[in-house]
């Protein structure tokens, strides 16, 4: 569901895919520009102990959200990955969350 919204083209082919396409029938190609949250808020330190920050970048099942969806820039995504994996190791975040 979330993927179809982020990928270009797919929204046009499948108008029923995302909620945006339903809301604006004519402007199907409209997408908001994503910005890296770490760049905007000037968060230098992506720490593995900061569970609240990290948990906003993991999906419901405990997976790391890809940056094509979250909009995080490459250097920050790399550090974010490291931090999430460290946090998983010490049981602050789940490897696989059950629903």
């Amino acid at each position, binding site marked *: 569901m979330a993927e179809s919204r982020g990928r270009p083209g797919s929204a046009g082919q499948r108008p029923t895919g995302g909620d945006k396409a339903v809301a604006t029938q004519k402007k199907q190609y409209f997408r908001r520009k994503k910005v890296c949250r770490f760049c905007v808020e*000037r968060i*230098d*330190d992506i720490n*593995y*102990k900061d569970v609240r920050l990290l948990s906003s970048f993991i999906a419901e099942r405990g997976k790391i959200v890809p940056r094509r969806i979250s909009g995080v820039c490459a250097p920050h995504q790399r550090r974010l990955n490291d931090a999430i994996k*460290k946090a*998983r*190791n*010490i*049981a*602050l*975040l*789940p*490897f696989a*969350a059950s629903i």
Partner: protein
Amino acid sequence: MRIYEELFIVKPDATEEEIDQLIEQMKSVVTTAGGTVDKVDKWGKRRLAYRVDKYREGAYILFQFTSAPETVKEFERRLRVSDMVIKFLTVRIDETLKRLEKRKKDRDKRAHRKATAAPAPAQPSVAQQMLGEPAPAAE
């Protein structure tokens, strides 16, 4: 000498005294090897994200110390031997701290330059009238 951070989880059924005793023990491991303990932080009991050795929660303890790399080996061995500790994680943080400090310094410098460069054309007339000297550079 390097700076390390050690986060470990103690069984939830351990008493406060046992935990304090363990902390003292681990402190002595670092100090006898010629290192210094910079910070000890007890987070208290927390829910674990997954089950570890049949435990669903545990008491987190955070150590920050400066020592030689060999000390970490001994420190980890002690944690492994101790039957109260169910999980631990060692992170070397001196390079991260250095990087962060540099980032901060660069940012401050840039902000400082911006502050001094921007108000220069407009400010002097007012400031000179008030004080008879150039506008303060900082802030």
